[in-house]
């Protein structure tokens, strides 16, 4: 099938790509406010439809059935995944999509190299870009598959570490880079071994980078996933941008770079929220089982006050201001609807209710916000760390639901340790703190939490959803 718009001058195509690029930028600009964000998403989707549509129209399509079959299958799978996903499964779905984008970029770069081999000429700029796209794309694909697997519970989500780990990773990185060098300076590296039509050095690179992707994410534990997901998001964009260099395509470069920047900024925010460097998240050893159980029992011994939903209800009854601090435990227990109902009941009684959200609470950037939005909590009630921290001293009751490390006061005082210096929510400054947790087990960092032993802290042990539901029921009976 000849191209429908085959006679279209290249400058017109480039112009349409520019328009698509502008739509992507405007779409992201609208993401700066919840009110305009849905429109932004539509504008961005419009840019995508425009860019893909014009490409289909101007390309000489040799196998139209195959192409449209691919588009149909992809669209069907995409719709199915998007429609059937539960809000609690959102982190792994975003991870999965990241991987697909990166994987597609790696395949495109490879296919383009094979095509170029047919025509003879390889340019250094092109082969070099293809090598970068291949490495980033493969790492993104396999890294995302492991991350999504960990989040979905099909891959061990603890930090899997072994001796010689860094050396093994370095080995595969070197292998991938060497294959890339061979691709670029082909004739000279291994004597005069001729390059076969399927460009083997590229696929060697892809193989090494794939293993590297798996090895990089395997040692990272569940609670560090926000950083990993954000970084892989950045990579999927960079893979697209470098593929743009291979294909000499402006909109791929613009759009890919925007995503690369977005993911990188989120990554930096996540790291800063934990006071850790990116290198520490990837190569650090946080999440290893700590063996100082004895010390932990010491600080809790005799200092733990437990409470019941009925008592909590009475405490809430006399409160003027309540702050709810959710953590990953709320997501696991799927307690967000009960929590939202409680906040609405309090709101109706004239209590000032707000939510204090730590940037790394949950398994992806903004995880708690999405869960609470799903449960219909208005976004004006959600406050981030800087906004909420100064208000704790004027707060009557703080209700911590399934959060641990992000409310650990020892982060402010400890000189060393996994969470030293991490910005935390200073909930202990409130008059009364109620912590809902299943047990006293430490959070992901393995560090005991002195908050639980504080005089003004009451522990409400039990499943988040059940406890919140009982609290809601008790509250309703008495009002």
């Amino acid at each position, binding site marked *: 099938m000849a191209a429908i718009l085959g006679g279209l001058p290249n400058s017109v195509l480039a112009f349409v790509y520019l328009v698509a690029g502008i739509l992507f930028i405007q779409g992201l600009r609208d993401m700066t406010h919840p009110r305009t964000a849905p429109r932004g998403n539509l504008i*961005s989707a419009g840019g995508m439809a425009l860019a893909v549509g014009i490409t289909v129209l101007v390309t000489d399509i040799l196998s139209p059935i195959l192409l449209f079959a691919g588009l149909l299958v992809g669209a069907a799978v995409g719709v199915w995944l998007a429609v059937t996903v539960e809000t609690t499964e959102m982190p792994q779905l975003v991870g999965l999509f990241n991987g697909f984008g*990166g994987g597609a970029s790696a395949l495109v770069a490879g296919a383009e190299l094979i095509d170029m081999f047919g025509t003879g000429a390889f340019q250094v700029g092109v082969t070099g870009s293809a090598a970068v796209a291949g490495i980033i794309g493969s790492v993104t694909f396999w890294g995302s598959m492991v991350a999504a697997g960990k989040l979905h519970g099909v891959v061990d989500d603890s930090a899997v570490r072994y001796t010689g780990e860094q050396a093994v990773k370095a080995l595969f990185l070197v292998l991938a880079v060497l294959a890339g060098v061979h691709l670029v300076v082909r004739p000279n590296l291994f004597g005069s071994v001729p390059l076969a039509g399927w460009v083997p050095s590229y696929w060697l690179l892809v193989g090494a980078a794939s293993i590297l992707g798996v090895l990089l994410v395997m040692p990272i534990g569940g609670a560090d996933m926000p950083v990993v997901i*954000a970084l892989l998001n950045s990579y999927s964009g960079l893979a697209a941008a470098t593929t743009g260099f291979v294909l000499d395509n402006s909109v791929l470069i613009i759009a890919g770079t925007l995503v*690369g920047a977005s993911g990188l900024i989120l990554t930096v925010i996540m790291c800063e929220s934990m006071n850790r460097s990116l290198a520490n998240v990837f190569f650090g050893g946080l999440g290893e089982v700590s063996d100082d159980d004895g010390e932990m029992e010491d600080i809790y011994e005799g200092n733990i006050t437990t409470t019941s939903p009925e008592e909590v209800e009475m405490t809430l009854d006399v409160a003027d201001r309540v702050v709810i601090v959710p953590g990953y435990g709320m997501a696991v227990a799927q307690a967000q609807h009960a929590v939202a109902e409680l906040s609405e009941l309090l709101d109706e009684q004239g209590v000032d209710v707000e939510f204090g959200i730590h940037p790394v609470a949950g398994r992806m950037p903004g995880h708690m916000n999405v869960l609470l939005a799903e449960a219909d909590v208005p976004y004006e009630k959600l406050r981030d760390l800087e906004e909420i921290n100064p208000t704790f001293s004027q707060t009557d009751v703080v209700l911590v639901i399934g959060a641990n490390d992000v409310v650990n006061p020892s982060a402010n005082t400890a000189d060393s340790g996994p969470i030293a210096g991490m910005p935390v929510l200073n909930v202990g400054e409130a008059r009364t703190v109620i912590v809902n947790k299943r047990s006293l087990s430490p959070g992901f960092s393995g560090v005991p939490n002195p908050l639980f032993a504080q005089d003004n802290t009451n522990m409400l042990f039990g499943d988040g959803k059940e406890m919140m539901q009982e609290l809601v029921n008790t509250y309703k009976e008495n009002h």
Partner: protein
Amino acid sequence: MTFVQNLTLFVLAAFVGYEIITKIPTNLHTPLMSGANAISGITLIGSVVVAGSGSTTLATTLGFLAVVMATVNVVGGYLVTNSMLDQFRSSDRRRD
């Protein structure tokens, strides 16, 4: 275009991205990520070109796989972002 012209685009886009994305509130970080993720499916354009005009069976097959993966990314990404953003509402809208 030359490599340097492409590099120019890359650098300018990086600055634009930085300026815009640092203004996005924490509230919207998940939709931002999934929306940006859908944008990274732009690689679909490249997939269409190689799947449609690949000169060898191998290139066409790889292109086909890339089209499927990139389309999942684009379609799924925008839909998920859309349904997520639908849930973000203010108290004014909720009382309607």
